[in-house]
C-alpha cells in the first residue's frame, strides 16, 4: 500500500522560553542566571492525510496549529516524533521537497512592496525552473480563477488587503505544489472576498488533486471547504473526523425552537425533565434537549403545549467550537 501524502506520528514540539518575574530586581537576577520554562506547543499528535484531501486544521489561538504547519513545511524541527510529507522528512528541506509543497501565510506577505506582482511571479517561475510555457499557462489559469488580471502590473503597495491575498495565493501555487498549507488565508478579508477565495481553493483542489491543509478561525471557511477536520487544543489532538460528526459527538444536544399560541404566551410552561430553556420571548421559546431523548420529548411537547411552530436544529458549529475552546475538553 502506498504511503499517505502526510503522515504524522507522535509529533511533539516543546519550546524553551526564558521566564522572568516583573520588576527591577528580577530583571537584574535574570542577567546573571536565566530561568527557563518548557512550553509544550504540540504534544504527540498523530494523523495521516491522503493525497487530494482537504482538511481543516482548527483550534483556538495558541493551540499549536501554526507550529504544526511549520514543522510540516520544514521550518521547525520537532522535539520528538516523525512526519513524512510527500515522502520527505520536511525539516531536511531538500530542494525536491520544497518544490512539492507550498505554505501561504495570511498574516505574512512574501510580495515585494515596490514592484508589480507580475515581476515577483516571474522570479518565482525562475526559482522553480518553470519553462516559459508552463509559467504562462499556470499563471493564466490562476489569474483567471482569481479574476485578477488588472492587478498584475500595479505596484503591490497600491493593492488592497484582499487583492494582496490573491497575489499571495498565486505566488504560492505557481509551481503547482502537490501539498498546500494555508494558514489563515482569509484573515481580515470581507465576506465576499472570503467566499471568492474559498471557491478558488476548492476549485484548485479539484482541478489538480492537491492536498490542502487549512487553518482558519472562520468556521464558514472550514464548513465550505473541509469535509474533514482535525481539532487541536493545548497541543493535543482532540478530534479527527467529519465536521458534521464533530457537532454530534461534541455537542450531545439539539436546539428546539417552538412558537406558542398567543393565549399561553407569558405563562409558566410545564416542561418535561431534561429540557432546558435557553431563551424565551413572549410566544417564542428556545429549548435545549438531549440528543437521544429529542424524539420523545418532542412528542410530549406537542401533546402538552399549544404549539404553532416547531423547529429542531443542531447547535451552530460556532457554538460547539466555542464550548470546546472554553471548556478545553470533548
Amino acid at each position: 500500500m502506498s504511503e499517505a501524502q502526510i503522515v504524522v506520528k507522535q509529533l511533539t514540539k516543546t519550546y524553551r522560553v526564558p521566564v522572568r518575574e516583573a520588576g527591577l530586581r528580577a530583571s537584574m537576577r535574570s542577567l546573571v542566571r536565566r530561568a527557563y520554562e518548557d512550553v509544550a506547543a504540540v504534544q504527540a499528535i498523530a494523523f495521516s492525510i491522503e493525497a487530494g484531501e482537504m482538511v481543516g486544521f482548527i483550534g483556538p489561538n495558541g493551540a499549536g496549529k501554526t507550529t504544526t504547519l511549520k514543522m510540516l513545511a520544514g521550518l521547525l524541527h520537532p522535539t520528538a516524533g516523525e512526519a513524512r510529507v510527500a515522502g520527505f522528512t520536511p525539516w531536511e528541506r531538500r530542494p525536491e521537497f520544497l518544490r512539492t509543497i507550498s505554505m501561504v501565510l495570511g498574516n505574512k506577505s512574501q510580495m515585494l512592496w515596490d514592484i508589480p506582482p507580475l515581476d515577483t511571479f516571474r522570479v518565482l517561475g525562475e526559482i522553480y525552473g518553470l519553462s516559459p510555457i508552463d509559467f504562462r499557462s499556470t499563471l493564466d489559469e490562476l489569474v483567471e480563477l482569481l479574476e485578477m488580471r488588472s492587478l498584475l502590473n500595479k505596484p503591490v503597495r497600491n493593492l488592497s488587503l484582499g487583492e494582496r491575498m490573491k497575489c499571495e495565493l498565486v505566488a504560492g501555487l505557481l509551481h503547482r505544489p502537490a501539498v498546500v498549507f494555508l494558514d489563515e488565508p482569509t484573515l481580515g478579508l470581507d465576506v465576499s472576498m472570503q467566499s471568492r477565495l474559498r471557491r478558488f481553493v476548492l476549485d484548485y483542489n479539484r482541478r489538480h488533486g492537491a492536498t490542502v491543509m487549512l487553518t482558519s478561525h472562520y468556521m464558514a471557511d472550514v464548513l465550505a471547504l473541509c469535509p474533514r477536520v482535525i481539532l487541536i487544543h493545548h497541543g493535543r489532538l482532540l478530534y479527527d473526523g467529519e465536521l458534521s460528526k464533530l457537532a454530534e459527538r461534541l455537542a450531545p444536544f439539539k436546539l428546539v425552537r417552538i412558537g406558542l399560541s398567543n393565549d399561553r404566551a407569558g405563562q409558566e410552561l410545564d416542561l418535561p425533565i431534561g429540557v432546558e430553556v435557553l431563551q424565551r420571548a413572549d410566544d417564542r421559546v428556545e429549548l435545549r434537549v438531549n440528543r437521544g431523548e429529542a424524539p420523545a420529548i418532542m412528542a410530549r411537547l406537542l401533546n402538552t403545549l399549544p404549539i404553532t411552530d416547531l423547529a429542531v436544529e443542531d447547535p451552530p458549529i460556532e457554538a460547539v467550537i466555542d464550548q470546546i475552546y472554553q471548556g478545553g475538553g470533548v
Partner: protein
Amino acid sequence: MNWRGGWALVKRSWSSWLQYRSFFFVLAFGWMIPPLIYLFVWSTAAQSGTVGGMTPAEFVAYYLVLILVNQLTYAQTNWTVGDVIRAGDLNAWLLRPLPPLFHTLSAEIAGKVVMMAFVIPAALILALVLRPTLNATPLQVVLFVPALMLAWLLRFFWGYWLACLAFWATRADALLAVQDALVFLLSGVVAPIGLLPPFMQVAARVLPFYYMVGFPVEVLTGHLNIADLLSGFVIQAAWTIIAIFLYCRLWRAGLLRYAAVGG
C-alpha cells in the same frame, strides 16, 4: 545550485531597489563624507611638501580610490540579512528551493550597482577639480583587481557572520558600532595606515579591517614593495577564509536555533 533562480532574483532586487535610487544616492553621499573630510585634512597638511612621503595630489588619489573601494566593499548584510532574521521574514526564504545566500548576494549586487551610478560620476567630478596624481604601474593595476575582489569577499562574509548574530541577540547594534569604529580607524579611512602611531600600525596589519579597504587602495596608489604585497595578500586571503568559515558555522548553528525556536 540554482543559478537561474539566483540571477532572476538579482534582476528583481535591482528593479526594486532602483525605486529607491534617491535614497541610495543620499546614503552613498553620506558614506563619502568621512573620506572626503580626511582627503582635505591630509592634502592641506601636506601643502608645504609631503606628509609620510605623500604629496597633496597623492593624498587626493589615495582618497578618491578609497571612496570607490569603500563603497564597493561596504557590507550591507546587517540590513539585508540581519533585519530579515529579526523580522521573521526568513521563513519566506526557507520555503523556496533556493539557497538563502542568493537573496543576500542579489541585494549586494543590486545595491552596489545602484550606488555606483552615483559614486563613479561623483568621483570623476572630484578628480577633475582636485587633480590627483596616480602613477600606477601596469602590475599595480593588475594586482588591484584580486585585492579588490578579496576585499569585497572578506568584508561581505565578515558582515555576514556578524549579521548571523541576529539569530541569538535581537540587537547587535553595540557590536556593529565597535566594528564600524575599528573599520574607520584601522582600515585606512582616518589616514593611510603608514601614518598611524606604531602600535596602531601593528594592529591594523594584523586585524582584518585594513584588508577590507586600505590594502587594495595602497596596491593601486601606494609604494608597497614585494614583501608588503606578498604578506598583504596572504593575510587578506587568510582573513577571508576565516570570515567564510565563521559565516558557515554561525549560519548553520543559527538555522538550527531558528528551527528550534521558530521565527
